């Protein structure tokens, strides 16, 4: 789907989005001016916060260099209160993201700006969205060695309304997935077909036991597309630019299918087709 290969990471875009959503009380003009406001954010909004799920960070060390975004958040370990809510900006490899106080912005970025409501709906929203996009989030981990060398098995996975033929080590560009961040591990449940040199599984319509693991690599914008409308001889022309928001996933593993041990097995020795009889599951 994303044919264009020129990308630029979404970090700046996201940070401005988050700031603007959280700062509905404070009109803000530029990115750098967000930061002094954010220092005040916990204090101004504390009466509306009930739960310990909001973590108030110490901003003093962070605001020294508003223009230098290289803040690595290594010693941050407040995972106790927030298991459901998405953690904010803990990318060990993505140095460009700036840190913000409230965490709900990632989870429910399109909600109206009421912090107390967000904590109630976040769990359900995440579950629903996961069903729509056929993904399940696992927490990010640093010390996992998830990336295996190439195995000759493939699976056909559906994300949203797009299908991809995927095998180990591929990277696919997918419509922006809302509730995951960089370095998240996902499980893609909706697998329509899986194959390997020794085994073929065809799902009717999906295979229930096969799961595909993926890691979110980046949230980025596609290359710019210029939309140009013109009516000749009528003095009408419009120019508009558009960048689609995408997520890049790297496929790490396909579970539930036999993989041959010798990687050079080209011709299938024995082929057994399994069918999962399922009454039509709504896509």
């Amino acid at each position: 789907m994303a044919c264009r290969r020129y990308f630029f990471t979404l970090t700046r875009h996201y940070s401005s989005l988050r700031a603007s959503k959280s700062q509905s009380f404070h009109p803000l003009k530029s990115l750098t001016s967000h930061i002094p406001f954010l220092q005040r954010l916990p204090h101004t909004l504390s009466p509306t916060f009930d739960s310990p799920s909001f973590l108030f960070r110490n901003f003093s060390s962070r605001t020294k260099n508003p223009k230098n975004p290289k803040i690595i958040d290594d010693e941050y370990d407040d995972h106790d209160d927030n298991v459901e809510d998405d953690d904010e900006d803990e990318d060990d490899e993505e140095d460009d993201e700036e840190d913000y106080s409230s965490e709900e912005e990632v989870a429910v970025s399109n909600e109206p700006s009421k912090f107390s409501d967000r904590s109630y709906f976040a769990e359900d929203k995440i579950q629903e969205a996961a069903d729509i996009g056929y993904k399940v989030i696992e927490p990010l981990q640093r010390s996992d060695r998830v990336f295996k060398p190439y195995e000759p098995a493939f699976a056909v996975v559906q994300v949203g309304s797009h299908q991809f033929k995927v095998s180990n080590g591929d990277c696919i560009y997918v419509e922006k997935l809302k509730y995951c961040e960089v370095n998240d591990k996902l499980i893609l449940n909706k697998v329509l077909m899986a194959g390997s040199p020794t085994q073929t599984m065809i799902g009717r319509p999906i295979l229930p036991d096969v799961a595909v693991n993926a890691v979110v690599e980046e949230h980025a914008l596609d290359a710019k597309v210029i939309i140009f409308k013109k009516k000749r001889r009528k003095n009408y022309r419009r120019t508009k630019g558009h960048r689609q928001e995408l997520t890049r996933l790297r496929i790490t593993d396909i579970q539930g299918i036999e993989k041959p041990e010798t990687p050079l097995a080209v011709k299938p020795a024995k082929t057994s087709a399994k069918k999962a009889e399922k009454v039509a599951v709504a896509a």
Partner: protein
Amino acid sequence: TSFRGAHSRLTQTIAQQKIRALVSARRDRDRQKRDFRRLWITRINTVIRKKGVYYNYSKFIHELYKRQLLLNHKILAQIAILNRNFIYMIYNENIKNEDSKE
């Protein structure tokens, strides 16, 4: 750039050609979706026709819908080219199920 002759040298024509390029880009982005689907259909058709006389794309797709297989055309075309045996396996299953059902 790939504009030939005067279309890359004369300023007025450059402006005109740029506009035409953008317009045709817009029109072709919609066409692209149609074109690719056509391409996939013809590819699936050729691979399926080898399976026997009087067996063609339309019957294959009809069988797919009957069996509730939700693979879309893009994937089918990819599989048809890269992993041809899998298409044949789908076809075999359809045949087997027909015999067992009837």
